């Protein structure tokens, strides 16, 4: 879709959703079509603590850490993302004059996923199969519903969870949801807003920002959330998205800056 931008905002502290929403509102008023995708891991952690739901993490054999989404955590995740983060985003967009509609994978089966029935992980130094994890990999996006809304001037706000083959919700990484949405809609650009200037040659030095980075080269920062962003970026680039950028969500006009050459462009 010509000129369409998919913007992923994270749940990390430091990124102000109101600032991002004001920027998105300005872009929409200027005629840009935008799809917003959000996660919200900080909100999930906070609500889990308030509800006394212990949070565990899984470490893959290759060392990647992710949330262990057991049944109780899946319920907390839906509460936090759909009942807290998303309403705040929708209200902020509405105040900016944007007609925004929130959709998760459960809305008209927008995001279908294949549940990971068993996840290989390392627990206490042992390799185990985790069988109660409710997360999955996106297999399809219903572009028709998104196009219907975009054509009517609506800005979709897309959230995990996705829906599995059995019709039940599964957690899905929001970066990869954003990539799948961008590919399905033939977006011109995919912008990941983070609490960092972009990809850094030296993680301790904000001035070492890389203007461009070729995926497949040695990646300077493979830790934490950035690794998954690079996986998602590869999926988007392979799917035909022309411009994929990781950029700072903490500055003024974060989306505009990312589209004007800010942050790190991935190739």
């Amino acid at each position, binding site marked *: 879709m010509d000129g369409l931008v998919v913007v992923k905002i994270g749940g990390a502290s430091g990124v102000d959703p109101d600032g991002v929403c004001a920027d998105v509102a300005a872009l929409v008023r200027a005629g840009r079509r935008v799809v917003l995708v959000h996660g919200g891991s900080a909100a999930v952690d906070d609500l889990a603590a308030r509800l006394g739901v212990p949070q565990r993490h899984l470490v*893959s*054999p290759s060392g990647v850490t992710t949330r262990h989404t057991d049944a109780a955590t899946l319920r907390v995740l839906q509460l936090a993302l759909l009942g807290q983060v998303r309403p705040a985003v929708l209200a902020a967009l509405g105040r900016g004059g944007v007609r925004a509609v929130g959709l998760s994978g459960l809305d008209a089966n927008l995001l279908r996923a294949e549940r990971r*029935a068993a996840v*290989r992980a390392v627990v206490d130094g*042992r390799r*185990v199969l985790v069988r109660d994890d409710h997360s999955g990999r996106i297999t399809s996006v219903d572009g028709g519903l998104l196009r219907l809304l975009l054509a009517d001037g609506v800005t979709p706000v897309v959230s995990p969870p996705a829906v599995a083959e059995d019709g039940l919700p599964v*957690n899905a990484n929001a*970066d990869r949801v954003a990539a799948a949405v961008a590919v399905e809609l033939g977006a011109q650009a995919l912008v990941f807003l983070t609490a960092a200037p972009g990809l850094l040659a030296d993680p301790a030095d904000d001035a070492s920002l890389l203007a461009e980075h070729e995926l497949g080269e040695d990646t300077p920062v493979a830790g934490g959330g950035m690794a*998954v962003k690079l*996986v998602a970026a590869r999926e988007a680039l392979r799917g035909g998205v022309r411009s994929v950028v990781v950029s700072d969500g903490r500055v003024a006009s974060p989306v505009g800056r990312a589209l004007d050459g800010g942050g790190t462009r991935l190739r």
Partner: protein
Amino acid sequence: MAATACPECEGSVELAESLTQNEILECPDCLSELEVVTTNPPVLALAPEMAEDWGE
């Protein structure tokens, strides 16, 4: 150290004192990945094959 038969090649797989449910062992003979399905008595089954696919 106890041992049990590999469900794939029937070779002998040695078992540590403390086994964990869903732990993955490797058969020294056929190199199959084996999942500990129950710990007492220890029962092994071929672990499902999967690509590693991560992301919250």
